[in-house]
């Protein structure tokens, strides 16, 4: 259930804050960089679910700001959901970007083998022990009559952050 949604941020970045089943859900949109302020997020209080679906980019200073935010959230439980490939890349390159947060779901990149169009398929990671082993190399394409989509990458590399 989503209630009391409010949008906070600047012209490059927006955080829509709402409540769902006792969690503060923060939907992040736009760019995270050195100008991004997270005061409203801290004020909202945890436990938190950060939704990354709308995040367009995060630069190196943005990574640092995010890691500092995680430190400031202290003992609050933190979950990440709907992480697109650009966020998964950061999870793999900068372990402190994840910190002690748990990842609930990620988008998997696929490419249609007949049209070469790119697709993102959401993978729910709750109750999953080894996500790399459960990535389907091929899936039916929802838009092509006989086509298939192929996983665009190496599952083990994509889930290197998983522990």
């Amino acid at each position, binding site marked *: 259930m989503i209630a009391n949604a409010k949008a906070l941020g600047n012209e*490059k970045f927006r955080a829509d804050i709402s409540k769902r089943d006792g969690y503060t859900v923060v939907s992040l949109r736009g760019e995270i960089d*050195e*100008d991004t302020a997270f005061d409203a997020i801290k004020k909202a209080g945890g436990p938190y679910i950060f939704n990354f679906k709308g995040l367009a*980019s995060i*630069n*190196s*200073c943005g*990574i*640092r700001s995010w*890691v500092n935010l995680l430190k400031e959230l202290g003992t609050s439980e933190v979950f990440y959901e709907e992480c697109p*490939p*650009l966020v998964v*890349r950061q999870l793999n*390159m*900068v*372990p*402190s970007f994840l910190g002690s947060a748990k990842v609930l779901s990620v988008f998997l*990149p696929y490419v249609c083998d007949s049209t070469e169009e*790119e697709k993102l398929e959401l993978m729910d990671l709750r109750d999953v022990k080894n996500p790399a082993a459960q990535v389907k190399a091929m899936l039916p394409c929802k838009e092509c009559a006989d086509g298939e989509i192929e996983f*665009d990458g190496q599952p083990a590399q994509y889930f290197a952050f998983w522990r």
Partner: protein
Amino acid sequence: MKSSAARLDDVAGSNSITVGGLAKRDAAKRVAEGCRHVHSSPLGARDPVAVSTEQAIANGEVARYPWELAKSVTFTLTSSDERHELIEAILGRFGRSWKREMRERVRSIIEELVTNAIYHSYRDAEGARRFPRKKTARLAPKEAVEVIVGTGEGGVYLSVRDKAGNFAFDAVSSAFHRCYGSPAEQIETKESGAGLGLYFIFEAATHLKVVNEPGKSAEVACWIADKKNFDAAVFSFNFFERRSE
């Protein structure tokens, strides 16, 4: 791929070239240890890029690579704020035919290269950085940063050149040492930046080349292979210092 680097030429000291089948982490370790030229390719020392590098070093020149001949467009910036508009302009002009990952890599590399060029390069008379990271930096027209974007067969070429020439090899070696070392020490706390930019660029690029001419200019250029031409075992890092005549 198994790391089995073979040092071809150790006589020239810091200009030695390491060639072999390497993982990026292993290559970064070599750079952190002081090696300015690292090539990874299944062809080993016969790789054409490694051969070009070796010849250039022997001749005391800066190597030129095939991707630098890609059809390109040059942009100039005199303010840090212009980078957002520049990135959108580049993605709008060239990015329509690129895959999502290429667009994300180009966005990230230009962001990191341009902010590095503006905020880290320009110094005052005492050698301190002229621009605090959280403020808009404005350069004089003669200091303008040049950004070159080239599209060639199999990938994208990017180059960012400042007019300061303060890019020391130590900056790369220490960044690689930190970023590929303990995760707890990856991120710097200094005001000027998080110290992750070069790491991100090295990870995203296929070939990375730095040319520093002290007091004159520094250029960081890279080639990003597209999906069809990407091979994780093929990459290079080269740092050249050009001495003024």
